[in-house]
Each structure stands twice: as structure tokens, then as C-alpha cells.
């Protein structure tokens, strides 16, 4: 569905990544994991069109595009809810800006609110609800984008452990029930192993893919199986090795 | 040792007496920026007439015209130059000032306008827009002037300091307040011809445009020095009548920032008005005070005999 080839970006005369290749398959959950701050967010900036790459191509369903700005939805660490709009109004923003039937959008949003456990809080302002609820509202907004691909930039790292767990299951819901394709960045190995179908290990700068691992088994149940525990050890070792060679 | 000690004693005594013979300081606050009306004061200073009488005069410009009266009354300055009308207002308001001398003995204030065939008497200003320069003072005088001359229909507009632009732009047809010795000159230098109605010729009692005032307490404390000041100014005035060109030169030397062309022309017009020696005329002042009461310039009557000090 999405294919990136030969992507290069230089920032402040330092190569962030060069010759970066990546393929994301439809309705699969791809996770990029690597040490903090070594270029993963810059990759997303390039994919979303915030900055242009110095080299390389982005292919969407076989045809070349400049960026995924109109094709992907985006979720960030920060919920990015506008403080002056209610939760419902926030979730309706993509429909307002993108055009389309607001009445229909409204009922869809209400359904999603109830599906994600936010019923009754539609009229609340963001400062009146908890961080987890805000992130769930952000999820609704992301779904309201109605785009097949969702880019997730460490969306859960700012949350406490319990809220995190809840939202991780919601992300899996996006894949199973809402039929989305997801590409996520994280630096939490447990999270990666829990969610990913295709797991990409990233190196430190200049960023490249050290290894691609395909994961099988029921999500989330599989986390405690011995195979995955062994996998986790291996991954940790690999990432540490890489850091020893080349600290960011 | 003895010789040296007595030398020191002699020197110290000398300085002690020299010190006590040093000049008496007087502060004088003008009514406005130094201008040709103040010429006698500057001539007196430059020619050493103050020093001769043991006086050291410090001349200060005010931030605005009412300052002098207030500060003289409170004793913050020893003397001030002021206007008869405003002094009468001050006396009526209870300020304890005394009139101690004269500088300009007749009115210079006029109702001024651009020279025109259409305006020959105040009646010709019927229905026109008349500007005035100081609210609370000039508007009242304007009202008196108009009522005395039978002009009922006119519009009074406060033009602040912008006398000439207001006339030229046609915002007003005449202005109450400009001096016939000054604005006429500045306007002539801009190729504008001015004409005017003199107040004292059209019903306003004659008054002294510029006078010297001081606080009552200052008068009792520094009377001798103030008398010396007044005598020095009178001498300077006598001198300038005999030697006008020289006096003008002295004045311009004392005030290098003055516009010599304007001041020179203004000087010729002002010459006849510098006050002759002698104090203010209490009777004439009373006439003006009564006139002020009658026309609402003051609220409480003023007895000018108490106001004017005769040396």
C-alpha cells in the first residue's frame, strides 16, 4: 500500500537517514522501533509533507506522490485537541475542514464516542477531562479522517501504564474493526511486540532498518509466550549493539 | 609663626566680609519663553544693572503661563512676570500676590484677523467663527468684547496655540489673543497681512499687559532687593528709549536662539509700550477688576489697592 524507496534527508549538515526503504502492507500493523530521537519523527515529517526529502520517492498504491498529507491520518503524542472546542467539536474538525455532510459526520462521531467509551462527555471541554479521555477523543478525530492509513507518532508515550494499556487495545480495534492500516513509531519494546505485525528495528543516526521481523500470534495474548520473550531479548540486544557502535 | 597666624586670620576675615557682601539672589519666572517684551530685563542683566545693586537674578521660563503666579504666591520663586487679567483672577482666587512693577503698560492683546475689506468694525464679525487661545481667560474676554460691541451671533472656538494655521486654513475668521506686536510680525514674514481690533479701543478697560508680581511674604522678606530689581529695570527701560539699536543688540546677544529678524521687527512695534517708571495705577486696575466681575472673569470682587504695592 505504501512504499518508500531511497528516502534521504539531511538536517543541519547531518544525514538523518539516507537510502531509507520501507514497505507497509494493507491492513497490517507496522511498527518502527529504535532509540529515542534518532530520526523517526523526521521520517514522519517527510511522509506527511511537512518537509521535503532530499532524495527518494514515496509510492502510494503503486503511484508516486509528493507526500501522504491528503492520504493518511495522523496521531501524535500530544492529543492536539483545541482547548476552545468541545470534545465533539474537536472530533468534527476534519469533517468541517475537509467538507462533507456535517449531519452525517455528527452521527458517526457520536457512534464512535460511544464505541470508545466517551458517551456523555461530548459537550465537555478538553481541560475538563482526563489525559486518557483526551487521547481517546483524538482517536475519534483520527477515525473521522476516513483515511486508510494512520500514522502514529508515539501516541501513547505520555500516558500512565493503565491508560496506555486501554488505548493499546483501542489501536488494535482500529486495525480489526475499522479496517485501517497502521504505521507506528515507538521506543517501547513491549508495546511494539504487543501491537506489531511487521516490526522494523531501526538503527541510530543515520537511520536505517537493521532488521525486519514478522510477528504472528494473537494480539494481545501473545506477549507472554516464550517465543516472544526470547524475541524481546534478541531485539534488546540488537538495539543495544547498535547504540554502542554509534551513540546518537 | 605669629606672622603666619595673623595672616591667616586677616585672610579669613576678608573672605567672611566679602562673603556677606555677596549678591542677593532673586529668581524671576517669566510668563512665557523669553521674547522681545522681556527686553528691559535682559538689558538690565547684560549691562550689569542688577549686579550694581548687589543683585543676582536668575531668569526661568515656565511650563505654562499660570506657573509664575502660583509659584510666586507660594514663595517658590521670588518674582514673576504675569498679565494683569490673570493676576486679578489669581487675587480673586485668594492667591496672596503683590503687584510690584510694570513691564508693558498697555494691552497688546487683540482680536486679530486676516486683513480684509469686509471687516472694519467688530459688528462685521457677526455670525462668524472666532477663535480664542486660552479657555477660561480669552473666551471670557471675547464674550465681554462681543457683548460690549453688540455682536450677539458668533461661534467661539478654542484654537489652542495654533493661531496662524487656524486663520490661514479658514477654520476661524478671527482670533482673540494674539499680540499686535508679535503675531502681526510672524504673519508678515509669511507674507500674510494681519489687521486687528485693539481691546482698549473697543470697550475693554485699559490694562497693563505685563507686570511684575511677587508673593506677599517674599515682599516682606526681600523688599529691598525687589525694589532694587524694579529700579534696575526702569533704568534699562530709560536706556532703551535713548539707545534702541544698542539695546536690541544687547538683547540679541543675550538670547542667541532668538529669531533676530522677527524680534527686530517686533521690537519696533513694542517700543512705545515699555512701561515708564512709576507703579501701577490702582484706579485703572480697579476699573478692570470691576469690569472682570461684571463679565464673569472673576467670581469674587477684588480691591486693587491691597494688590498693588507702591514703593
Amino acid at each position, binding site marked *: 500500500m505504501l512504499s518508500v524507496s531511497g528516502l534521504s534527508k539531511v538536517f543541519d549538515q547531518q544525514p538523518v537517514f539516507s537510502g531509507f526503504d520501507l514497505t507497509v502492507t494493507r491492513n497490517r500493523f507496522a511498527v518502527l522501533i529504535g532509540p529515542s530521537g534518532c530520526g523517526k519523527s523526521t521520517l514522519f515529517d517527510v511522509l506527511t509533507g511537512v518537509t521535503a526529502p532530499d532524495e527518494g520517492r514515496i509510492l502510494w498504491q503503486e503511484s508516486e506522490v509528493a507526500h501522504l498529507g491528503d492520504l493518511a491520518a*495522523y496521531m501524535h503524542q500530544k492529543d492536539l485537541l483545541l482547548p476552545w472546542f468541545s470534545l465533539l467539536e474537536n472530533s468534527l474538525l476534519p469533517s*468541517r475542514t475537509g467538507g462533507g455532510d456535517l449531519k452525517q459526520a455528527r452521527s458517526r462521531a457520536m457512534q464512535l464516542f460511544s464505541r470508545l467509551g466517551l458517551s456523555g462527555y461530548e459537550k465537555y471541554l478538553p481541560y475538563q477531562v482526563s489525559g486518557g479521555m483526551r487521547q481517546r477523543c483524538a482517536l475519534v478525530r483520527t477515525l473521522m479522517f476516513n483515511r486508510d492509513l494512520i500514522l502514529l507518532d508515539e501516541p501513547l508515550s505520555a500516558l500512565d501504564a493503565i491508560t496506555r494499556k486501554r488505548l493499546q487495545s483501542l489501536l488494535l480495534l482500529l486495525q480489526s474493526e475499522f479496517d485501517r492500516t497502521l504505521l507506528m513509531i515507538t521506543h517501547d519494546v513491549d508495546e511494539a511486540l504487543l501491537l506489531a505485525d511487521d516490526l522494523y528495528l531501526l538503527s541510530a543516526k543515520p537511520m536505517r532498518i537493521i532488521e525486519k521481523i514478522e510477528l504472528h500470534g494473537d494480539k494481545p495474548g501473545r506477549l507472554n509466550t516464550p517465543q516472544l520473550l526470547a524475541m524481546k531479548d534478541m531485539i534488546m540486544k540488537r538495539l543495544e549493539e547498535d547504540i554502542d557502535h554509534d551513540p546518537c | 609663626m605669629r606672622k603666619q597666624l595673623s595672616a591667616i586670620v586677616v585672610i579669613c576675615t576678608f573672605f567672611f566680609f566679602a562673603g556677606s557682601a555677596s549678591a542677593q539672589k532673586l529668581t524671576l519666572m517669566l510668563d512665557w519663553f523669553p521674547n522681545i517684551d522681556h527686553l528691559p530685563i535682559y538689558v538690565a542683566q547684560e549691562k550689569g544693572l542688577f549686579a550694581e545693586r548687589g543683585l543676582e537674578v536668575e531668569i526661568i521660563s515656565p511650563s505654562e503661563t499660570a506657573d509664575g503666579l502660583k509659584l510666586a504666591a507660594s514663595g517658590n520663586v521670588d518674582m514673576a512676570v504675569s498679565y494683569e487679567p490673570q493676576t486679578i483672577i489669581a487675587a480673586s482666587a485668594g492667591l496672596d500676590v503683590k503687584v510690584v512693577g510694570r513691564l508693558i503698560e498697555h494691552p497688546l492683546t487683540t482680536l486679530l484677523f486676516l486683513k480684509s475689506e469686509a471687516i472694519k468694525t467688530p459688528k462685521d464679525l457677526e455670525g462668524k467663527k472666532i477663535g480664542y487661545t486660552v479657555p477660561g481667560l480669552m473666551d471670557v474676554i471675547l464674550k465681554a468684547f462681543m457683548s460690549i460691541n453688540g455682536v450677539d451671533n458668533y461661534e467661539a472656538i478654542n484654537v489652542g496655540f*495654533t493661531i496662524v494655521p487656524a486663520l490661514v486654513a479658514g477654520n476661524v475668521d478671527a482670533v482673540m489673543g494674539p499680540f499686535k506686536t508679535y503675531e502681526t510680525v510672524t504673519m508678515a514674514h509669511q507674507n500674510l497681512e494681519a489687521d486687528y481690533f485693539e481691546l482698549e479701543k473697543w470697550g475693554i478697560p485699559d490694562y497693563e499687559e505685563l507686570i511684575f508680581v511677587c508673593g506677599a511674604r517674599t515682599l516682606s522678606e526681600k523688599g529691598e532687593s525687589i525694589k532694587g530689581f524694579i529700579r534696575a529695570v526702569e533704568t534699562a527701560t530709560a536706556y532703551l528709549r535713548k539707545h534702541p539699536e544698542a539695546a536690541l543688540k544687547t538683547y540679541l546677544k543675550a538670547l542667541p536662539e532668538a529669531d533676530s529678524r522677527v524680534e527686530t521687527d517686533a521690537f519696533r512695534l513694542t517700543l512705545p509700550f515699555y512701561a515708564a517708571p512709576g507703579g501701577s495705577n490702582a484706579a485703572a486696575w480697579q476699573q478692570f477688576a470691576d469690569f472682570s466681575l461684571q463679565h464673569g472673569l472673576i467670581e469674587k470682587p477684588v480691591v486693587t489697592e491691597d494688590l498693588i504695592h507702591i514703593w
Partner: protein
Amino acid sequence: MTRANLLALAILILLLGLWEVACWMFTIPVFILPPPSIIMSTAVLKAPLILPHAMTTGLEIICGIALALAVAIPLAIGMFAFPWLEKALSPFLVTSQAIPVFALAPLLVVWLGYGMAGKILMAAIIIFFPITVSLLEGFKGCDHEFRVLFRLMGAGFWQTMRLLYWPWALPHFFAGLRVGVTVATIGAVIGEWVGAQSGLGFLMIQANARLKVDLVFAVILWLSLMGLALWYGVGWLEKKSIFWRNNQQILE
């Protein structure tokens, strides 16, 4: 009344008390510096005289603020939308503030006459700059991630202005407005000093010429109260407009 308010009130009473005592103790003449008791009684007793002038000046200030907003808001939006415009206008904007305002007053009187127009313009000139600058800073201060979000949502500049930039900049806007509003009184009064037919500045000159210094100070008192009223008025407006809490808190 909160503790802070009580303290402020106490300090005020103390200062006024010292002033009053100093006037009597040093027998300062009333025509130099009147004591607070006389100022306040004049301000109340002469209220019928002062009120029409206060209304004139008040009207000049309100119109000046309206004019300033009418210029400042489009200007800030324009400079934000077109960075080249900001670069081009910056030197002029800064210079406009460096010129002493009382130098402009006589010119405005000559050009615009002795009515209210010149005073309104004076007030507007003084306050449009802080408002423009704060508003522009508010726009520019919008977090980068929000701008990306809006771009991804396909929102155009004006939609983003309406939904994101403007609400974001409101706190900055009100900060600028509060500063501007208190200085607007200065602009109007200075305009009146140079030539006016009514207004508190006019009344001050008139009172001064008649050596009624207590009235001068009473007028100053009225002006201060007007300034305070404007300050609190804007504060109230701000509270109503920014009905969410400081958005900085939420964005952690």
C-alpha cells in the same frame, strides 16, 4: 473581598492619609498641591460640571479604541498571512511609536480641525501598535504540531485562522488591548490640550487658567477612574472570551 484586595485598599488609604497630613503639616497652598480631601470633594461636588466633558473624552477614547482595532486586527492578520508584508511594514510601525505623540497633536488639529476627529485619531495612534504586535506574536506563537494537524486536515489559511490562530492568539490580544486601553486616555487628553471645545483635557486647561487647581486634580481623578474602568472592562471581556483555561496547561 480577598486578602490581596484588602491589602491594596489599606495601602491606598495609607498613601492618601500621608498626602493629606503632608499638605496640612507643610501648609502647602491649595493652588500648588491640594490634599486628597479637597480633590475628592471637588470631584463629587463639581460632578455636574465635569460629567459632560467626561462623556466627550470617553467617547473619543471608545472611538479611538474602535479605530485602532479596525486597523490593528486586519494589519496583524495581513502581516501573518504575508511575511513579506511584515518585513516591509516593521520599520514604519516601530518609527510610528518612536515619534512623541504630543508632537503630532498640533498637526492633527490643523489637519482635522478642533472637533473630536483629531482626538480620536490621537488615541488610535497610541494604542494600535501594542495591539498589532501582541496579536501578531500570538499568531506566530501557535504550536507547530497544531499547524501540521490543520494542514493534514486540508484546512486553508483562512479556515485555520478562524479555527486555530485567532482563538490561540486571544490571550496575547487581550494583553495588548489592556495596555493599549489605559494609554488611550493619554492620547485623547493630549489631543484636547492642543485645541478642543470640550472634554476633560479642555477642562483641565480652563481650570488651570482660572487657577482652580483643585478642579484640575479632580479632573485627573476622573481620568484615572476612567482608565481603571477600561482596564477592568477589558479584563471582564477577556474572561468571557477565553472560556477555556489557559491553553498552555492542557498542552502538556
